[in-house]
């Protein structure tokens, strides 16, 4: 089992956007999908998931609709909106630039200076 990493502040929203961009999901499904795509490396406090979902919906980045879950129960399903997809693209680029910069900075050696 891979070691579990704490989520960086501000990254939960991007992860949710990514998860729901891969297909519509209910809340618990979002949690599982993030675990799945991160290889189980990211630990998400379950209580923080829903406020984040509502915040993104309030901002118009995801939308929700009621449906039926696999166990036959009524469930609320979330999917990404056009604005959310655009934001995901921007955030992904921004993250990649940051990650690249961080990687470069952390791999720097005295010889390179």
């Amino acid at each position, binding site marked *: 089992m891979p070691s579990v990493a704490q989520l960086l502040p501000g990254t939960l929203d991007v992860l949710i956007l990514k998860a729901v961009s891969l297909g519509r999901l209910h809340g618990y499904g979002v949690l599982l999908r993030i675990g799945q795509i991160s290889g189980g490396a990211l630990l998400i406090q379950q209580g923080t998931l829903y406020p984040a979902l509502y915040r993104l919906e309030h901002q*118009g980045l995801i939308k929700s609709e009621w449906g039926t879950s696999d166990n036959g129960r009524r469930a609320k399903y979330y999917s990404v909106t056009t604005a959310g997809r655009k934001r995901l693209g921007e955030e992904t680029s921004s993250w990649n630039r940051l990650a690249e910069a961080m990687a470069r900075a952390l791999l720097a050696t005295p010889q390179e200076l």
Partner: protein
Amino acid sequence: MTMSTLLARIRSWFSGMRASRAVNAEMEEEFRLHMELRAADLQRDGLSPDDAGRRARAEFGGIYNITQLGREARGLAWFDALRFSWLDFKLGGRMAAKYPGLTIMATLAIGVAVAMGAGVSGAISTIRSESLPLEEGDRIVGIRLVNIATTAEEPRLLHDFAEWRTSLHSVVDVGAFRSTALNLVGVDGRDAVILGAEMSAAGFRVARVPPLIGRYLLESDERPSAEPVVVLGYDAWRRRFDADTSVVGRAVRVGTSMRTVVGVMPEKFAFPVNYSIWIPLRLDPLDYERGAGPNLFVLGRLAASASLDDARSELATRSAVAAHDHPETHRDLRAQVLPFGQAWLRVDDPHFVALFRTVQIIVVLLVVVICVNVATFVYARTATRQTEIAVRSALGASRSRIVAQLFGEACVLAACGAAVGVWLISVVAMQLDRALTQSGVSGLVPFWVRFDVSASTLAYVVGLTFLGAVIIGVLPALQLTGPRVQLGLQRLAGGHSTIRMGRLWTALILAEVGFAVTLFPTATRFAGEWVRVASAGPGFPADQFLSARLVIEGGLPRGPGGEEATTESRARFAQARDELLARLQADPSVTGVTYANTVPGGFYASTPHFEVDSVGAVAHAARFEARLDEVGPGYFELFDLPPTAGRTFAAADADSGAHTVIVNRSFADRAFQGTNAIGRRVRIVTYTANGPEVGPWYEIVGVVRDFSAGLPPIMPREVLYRAAEIGRQYPALLFVRVRTHAGGYVARLRSLTAAVRPDLRLRDVAPLEDRAHAEQLPLQWGALSLATVTASVLVLSCAGVFALMSVVVTQRRREIGIRAALGADPRRLLWALFARASAQVGAGVVIGLVASVLLDWALARGDLLGAHRVAILFGVSAAMGTFAMFAALAPARTALRIAPTEALKAE
């Protein structure tokens, strides 16, 4: 923020606010599903159902907290913070009971403020209403002609009316009317003067009110050859004919002629203004030249498909055509269409509009000032609860939640004040209605203007109460929450007080003391005059005087094509009046008789500005306002006013060419500063758009003592008397002095009057004392209102100083304890306590004095530094200081009783 994001947020807010509980239920449903799914996964991993459920719930966290976070994430935190619970109001009620003094004071203060604010605003909105309380009342209009050069209204529009009624498309049922006082002889043979209307039949169609019995007027009744008919109002029918239904079809005496009653209108019908009897308007334009004829008021109803703008447009075109066709009379005349109420009351006049706005701004400011004052001591009360506020904040209550709670408490206080306010409005409205009825002017008040607690007044009450609650609740709450809460928490353990009366509250106390001092001189002047008059009595045998207005039935006869009242008709009236005076004089019961245009010292008087000839006159007194009374022969003798200098009027002074006047002592003193007034000259100054215009000079031939028939001379004390010009004055206000009690002479006066001329009538016959007091009603109300406001502000000022001192003592409790322990002199301690209050009261008094002087200067009273004025101002200052010190006494006593050990216990 993009449009889609904005829409998403609005949708989210809307759904959150619309169905707050449903949102919570949906969230909880979502959470439960989450935990069930997680528990199912855990079971698959080998946990028992119970353990899986327990662990799923533990991992998820508290549903309540997550629900709250969810609501915050949806942007509903502010909405939640503003939601009140029943407990907020319950707590407000408890606080009101716990601090009865504050509750009573705040309730009364807010009650007075709300009553004045809502009463005045409600009355103004009723007066300015665009709709009458009739079917489609907003479509009833008045049409009038206005001279654009002089802005004066031209009421002689018979020819225009005749054209409008046949040619207008946007206004239908065009009719006209004029007021007339008619003498109606009832079933008992007794007559009574009733205010009625000569009206076109169209007027009834405009009103759309069917008659109670019979019919209303028809166009055929307007023909000169038609049988004279009359329509009775409900009250006239009930009182004069005992509600006899067979009166319809019967001939009754109306004035000097017999008329057949054709119908009775239902109760409360008084259209178009406030009439109780209607006769047909029979006027032929051919009898009058264009621009001449009687004064008329034109009304109509907007056509089914027409708007007010359509009517305005059509009449503008008609005006242009009339100006082109008849330039000699209509060059500057323009027709205006307005909602009927506005047209009748002339409330579209820019001066009125400005006045209404100013009055409304003043009353709202008054409410704000009084509520801010109440907020001062609510702040002091709330400050004592800082521990509670700090603890609640520490336990997680947001600032907005605490503010909302304090606002809820303030709502309770404001609602108590509103209840008192509504009660005050209803009492004042009832008294005003009664007073107007007693003074005989109620008939002049249009039927749609009612003195009661109307819906618009209640709407203002609600609005002002909310405003008051915001001020007295939110203002102190914002001051006491925020960074201070944190400070409060830090200091709680040490028992220190963090309450401070900052600059805001200091400024407020300063302002209220200043406000009270500004108002106090005027209020004391009013009160002083009333007390003086009440204690001194009328100063003449008022019970022996009878007053009555002498008129001609239906007004002065009008000449064809000429003025409303011809010189001949005025002369005939004067002849009849003089004959009546002669008969009265010959009656052994009468000791004297005269007439004038107004009651001495009464409210309804002409008060023009006068200019004094400059020889030796003091510059600032050169122009000022004074009463101008026109008096008949024997006036000064009847009221026992012998000249103190010069002479009284002789017969020659009533000639139109004689420019002579008599002045009273106040006028002479003010204009000539003690020098001889006889032979000096004065003239009337009229202020017009083109600057001041002056009239002819009048020579002063006599000076008499001040006299106002036992009324306080609140109006200008300065009076000029002019001899009533022969044959001009109409109507005449008779004053008859009898040997016994005036009330017993009424019947004799009536019979003598009827014997002189059949159409000579007496109206408003009453002892002079009663009439004078009726005329004084507006001033009484003014004085009462001013006294109430001043008393409220004064009480609030004292309460403000009390609150200030209480807070200062609480704040300096520890210091007082230490100083007392070290043996400080109690007097020095007291002075230290009083110093700040004294400084604030002193500063407020100075501000008030300056404002009072500036107010006088603005009102151009001219006697800025008179000895009595200086005395009043000093008296006011001393009174305020004394009041303030008394208010500070109780907190000071508390301060001196603080035991050093107790004060230092926390250390």
